[in-house]
């Protein structure tokens, strides 16, 4: 468990940002990931008094505060209607309800974890990360940025004509995923994200126009086979690289077939 000498519930973002510039201080989200470390900090900075725990929606986007919990995302009807329940499917096996009532969207996206179900599904939507000082950057760009001392304030999902499907393979429910895969069609454009390779989720498109004339059983199989050759996979105690590449093929094909309404 982490230890620290001081706890500050920030009164505004500037105060939180200023405190966070010291290496001895640390922003706390749900604290679930942080608590696994044994680091000692001077000050822990809590953002929970800043109204960042709301999911707002208008005609053009969803705006999700950094302190929104994973459970709130999972149960948000509008977001799940928009994503055909892909978001709730991606979240439902992360430990348990009590865990998801604590884990925050900010801590999740900040971590850019290699096993992240959340990163995988959000990459296939038109998602942006709003940073206090660093402006608004696409999630794909954020995922490849270096860790700095900025603060995530909101996650923005722009609305488009959207259909999305998510699936993962786990050795057992609540365990880390062996592989994650999300596919979407946004305004006619296909996006495919593969994560838990076991490395950070990566976003792919239909660059060779395999799906240009629509999803059929054949085009889905061909696309999945090509993607499996392209996605770098590695081995760990949950599965070998070869097994994961096979999973890339199976999950991509299956998700595309679902996306095309063929299953």
């Amino acid at each position: 468990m982490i230890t620290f000498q001081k706890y500050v519930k920030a009164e505004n973002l500037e105060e939180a940002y200023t405190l966070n510039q010291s290496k001895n201080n640390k922003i706390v989200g749900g604290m679930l990931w942080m608590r696994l470390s044994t680091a000692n900090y001077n000050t822990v900075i809590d953002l929970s008094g800043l109204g960042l725990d709301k999911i707002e929606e208008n005609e053009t986007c969803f705006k999700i505060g950094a302190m929104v919990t994973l459970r709130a995302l999972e149960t948000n009807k509008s977001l799940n209607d928009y994503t055909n329940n892909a978001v709730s499917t991606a979240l439902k096996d992360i430990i348990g309800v009590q865990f998801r009532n604590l884990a925050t969207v900010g801590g999740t996206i900040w971590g850019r974890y290699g096993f992240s179900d959340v990163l995988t599904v959000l990459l296939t939507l038109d998602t942006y990360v709003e940073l206090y000082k660093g402006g608004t950057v696409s999630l794909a760009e954020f995922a490849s940025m270096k860790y700095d001392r900025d603060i995530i304030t909101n996650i923005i999902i722009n609305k488009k004509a959207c259909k999305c499907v998510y699936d993962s393979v786990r050795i057992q429910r609540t365990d880390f995923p062996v592989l994650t895969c999300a596919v979407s069609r946004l305004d006619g454009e296909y996006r495919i994200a593969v994560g838990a390779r076991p490395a950070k989720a990566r976003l792919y498109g239909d660059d060779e126009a395999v799906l240009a004339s629509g999803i059929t059983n054949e085009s889905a199989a061909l696309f999945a086979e090509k993607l499996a050759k392209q996605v770098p996979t590695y081995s760990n105690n949950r599965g070998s690289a070869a097994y994961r590449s096979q999973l890339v093929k199976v999950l991509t094909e299956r998700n595309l077939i679902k996306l095309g309404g063929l299953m």
Partner: protein
Amino acid sequence: MDITLTLNGKKITDQIDPDLTLFDYLRSKNCYSVKCGCETSNCGLCTVFFDETPVLSCSVLAVRANGHKITTLEGLQDEASEFIGFIADQGADQCGFCNPGFVMNTIALLRENPDPTDDEIRQFLAGNLCRCSGYEGQLRGIRTFLDSKKSR
């Protein structure tokens, strides 16, 4: 740091270290139903209600409870007594260590969804680990309780 919270219906004020977990705080207040099985946010044994929401007390800072209502199984004996007999009748528990966390989260489930399907029960209770049983006994117990309520 000073905190004021309502613990099992009683308002209390205390001085605590900033990095004290809610779990350690509750044990220091004699809430021994709250147990620690993992300390890695995995097992659900330490489940308490933060206001009305089930959370893992091992992973919450006690200072965050300031101004809130915390309820442990000690404060929910009546609600628990409605169904714990049904779980015991199925021989669901062996050592019983996981039981308080299970009971707390079952209360949360039934408040949110009074008539869950078996799959909804499995899904909601997935974060409560039991090292002795295969979960079937707990599921049968909850199902028998729900069926008996319907036939009443």
